[in-house]
């Protein structure tokens, strides 16, 4: 579904991704695990068109995404739940969701999806008129997920959904991830929380210092080692 | 040298000091719409010193610089915690206040049977030290450019010093610089003080060239021109604002036949230039390339 081939992305002279190749399969949950600064967020921003890679290709359902604008990429069916949630704090919950459906034109379908989101996330329904900035961290994360879903993506990208959330909330978020996947959404998420990610992932990668250092299914590598490398990177670096 | 050329070169020298004043603040990352206020203060202070109290010119200029620097310091204290647009508008408010107060200010003395001194909107006439002392236009041009060269030399020395490097770091990213232990706020206040003094120096020289100023001269137009010179010429070196002044005033005089269309041509040219070089002709990257290898 998504094929990232030998992508190099740099900030000035500094290469944050040094030739990364990963793939996300249709209908599956794929995880990319790695420590801070390994290039996880850079990869997400490159796939969504916020950053331009120096070289490499990104194919989604066979079509090249490199060179497209973020808005064109959303229109093709790839949506990102950004790191730190990034809701629109001064807009109501409902308006946040409507903004997520910005590129869609049929009001009736949007309204139906809005109802569906409120069904899936009842807490958002309770707070529909409230400004998003007043929500708790967990609620904002759910809003960010729901907002991304409002664009009807075929592939949902998630950047560290567990960041800064209490363990119970993290569990709930991952329960939702698994649920969304069961309902047919393909998911590609980057995480540092290997313990939770390995529970839901069908396939996972390790990324360390801008390079992919492992690819396999959960169980192929001892969880302790994965956790160790996802938090700190391997010793050989 | 003909009188016309002397006049043009004198103007370029004066405006260079004002442009350098705005440029200094740009280097530490602040936009000022208000340097013309210090230019005005310098003009009034130096003019009062020489015309009303008979001080010699150097002492008068010095008095102007002191007043300008003190005012720069006094304005910097409350405004330095403002950033971006808020700082720019605070400087604008200060400069307009100053101009409006000068429009009300009457401070006259009898000198040799003549009433002299600031007279509200009428302005301040009779600052004749240069003429009374038979300093020729060419001689005064020499004074102006002597001072500009000294100022430039001092700025170049500073540029290479620790303070210069610290200023560039603060200008690039004040928060980062502060995190690295640089006293960003204090540096900015220092720079604002120096900038106030520099603008006042230009003003002091200006009033003695023109013999006459009025508050109307010091509107926001003057200040934004000064700001624009730095960006046109380039933020990378102290020569940048001077290049900007030369281009504008030089072009104004060179294109006298089409002077009526000057701003139409020049305004458009500046807009196009900034598309190509958003940090001016002599920007930081070019300056770095030119000086690479030198200590």
């Amino acid at each position, binding site marked *: 579904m998504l094929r990232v081939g030998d992508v190099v992305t740099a900030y000035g002279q500094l290469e944050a991704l040094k030739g990364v190749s990963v793939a996300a399969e249709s209908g599956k949950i794929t995880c990319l695990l790695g420590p801070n600064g390994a290039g996880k967020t850079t990869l997400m921003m490159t796939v969504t068109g916020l950053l331009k890679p120096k070289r490499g290709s990104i194919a989604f359902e066979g079509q090249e995404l490199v060179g497209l604008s973020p808005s064109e990429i959303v229109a093709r069916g790839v949506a990102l739940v950004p790191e730190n949630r990034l809701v629109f*704090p001064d807009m109501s919950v409902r308006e946040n969701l409507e*903004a997520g459906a910005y590129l869609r034109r049929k009001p009736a379908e949007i309204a139906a999806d809005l109802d569906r989101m409120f069904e899936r996330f009842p807490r958002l329904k309770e707070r529909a008129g409230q400004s998003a900035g007043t929500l708790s961290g967990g609620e904002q994360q759910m809003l960010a997920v729901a907002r991304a879903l409002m664009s009807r993506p075929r592939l949902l990208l998630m950047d560290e959904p567990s960041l800064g959330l209490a363990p119970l909330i993290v569990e709930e978020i991952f329960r939702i991830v698994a649920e969304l996947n069961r309902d047919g959404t393909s998911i590609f998420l980057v995480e540092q929380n290997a313990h939770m990610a390995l529970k839901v992932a069908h396939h996972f990668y390790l990324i360390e210092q801008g390079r992919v250092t492992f690819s396999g299914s959960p169980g192929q590598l001892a969880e302790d080692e994965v956790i160790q490398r996802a938090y700190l990177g391997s010793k050989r670096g | 040298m003909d009188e016309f050329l002397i006049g043009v070169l004198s103007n370029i020298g004066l405006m260079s000091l004002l442009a350098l004043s705005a440029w200094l603040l740009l280097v530490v990352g602040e936009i000022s719409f208000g340097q013309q206020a210090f230019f005005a203060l310098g003009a009034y202070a130096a003019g009062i010193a020489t015309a009303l109290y008979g001080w010699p010119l150097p002492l008068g200029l010095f008095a102007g610089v002191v007043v300008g620097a003190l005012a720069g310091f006094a304005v910097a204290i409350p405004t330095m915690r403002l950033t971006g647009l808020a700082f720019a508008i605070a400087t*604008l408010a200060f400069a307009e206040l100053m101009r409006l107060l000068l429009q009300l200010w009457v401070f006259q003395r009898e000198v040799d049977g003549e009433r002299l001194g600031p007279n509200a909107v009428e302005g301040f006439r009779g600052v004749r030290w240069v003429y009374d002392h038979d300093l020729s236009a060419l001689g005064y041009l020499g004074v102006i450019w002597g001072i500009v060269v000294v100022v430039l030399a001092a700025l170049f020395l500073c540029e290479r010093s620790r303070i210069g490097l610290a200023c560039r770091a603060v200008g690039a990213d004040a928060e980062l610089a502060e995190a690295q232990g640089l006293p960003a706020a204090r540096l900015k206040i220092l720079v604002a003080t120096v900038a106030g003094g520099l603008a006042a120096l230009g003003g002091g020289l200006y009033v003695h060239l023109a013999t006459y100023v009025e508050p109307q001269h010091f509107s926001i137009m003057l200040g934004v021109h000064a700001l*624009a010179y730095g960006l046109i010429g380039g933020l990378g070196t102290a020569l940048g604002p001077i290049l900007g002044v030369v281009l504008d005033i030089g072009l104004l005089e060179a294109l006298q036949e089409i002077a009526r269309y000057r701003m*139409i041509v020049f305004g458009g040219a500046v807009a196009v230039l*900034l*598309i190509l070089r958003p940090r001016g002709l002599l920007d930081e990257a070019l300056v770095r390339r030119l000086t690479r290898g030198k200590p």
Partner: protein
Amino acid sequence: MLDLIQNTIDGVMIGGAYALLALGFTLTFGVMRRLNLAFGAIVLCGLYAGAAAHQALGWGLLGSIAATLAVAVAAGLYVERLCFRALAESASIAAMVSSFAIWMQLEEIAALLMPRRTYAYPALSEARPWEWAGLSLRPDQLAMAAVALGAMAALGWTLRRTRFGLAARAVATAPLAARLAGIEPARIGSAMFLLACGLGGLAGALIAAVDSQVTIKFGMWAMLKGLVAMTLGGIGSIPGAVIGGLALGVIESNAQWYLGAEWRDIVAYGLLFAVLYWRRGRERPWTNS
């Protein structure tokens, strides 16, 4: 007391127009985080076009206002393309200086084409002031305030209730998240820029119609009033721009009455400086706070 009430009424009337000018700055600043110094000159171009249509073609009030709006938006398009869209996002100082250069350019074009000191603009209303219990109310000023209020209400509705308004608020408050939702900040910014120029043109037309004339100095005057009003209410805040505009009008008319005309602007700038100092001049683009 009666004086105070009368001054406040007068201040609120002109304050409505100030608020529109302030909104012109706030709208652009919120979405683009940049300052358009050519704003006053753009308004001036529109007013000169309106005055020309009045003089040469004999157009009436509505025709002149329409010409003003059309030319202000056209001049805005020129400035937006040349000074804002063509420059990288990071080059905000360059955009500001560039718009300053174009301010000079537009003003010179206007002065070349129409070199007289003043030009007549169709009057808003020539009806006599209404008198009531010692207070007087000029119908043209009342009309100006009413139109300004209507324009603000329409703007509020656009921002709250339309897809464009939603996108604009998203860009103003969280540009990165907006891009991830498929909103293109550059396009929204351009549209908002033109809308701001239209509002500026309307404000200018109202003021010129109350004065029945326009001079070349109007551009600079409009820019200063807009900037001051925007800053008084809190840089970037939309309700702040409205409050700032009204406050500036009321302050000016009272200062002029009690202290004299020469103190009017001094009080306004002094207060502006104090407000910046006191509120620490934080920029809060479009937030509710």
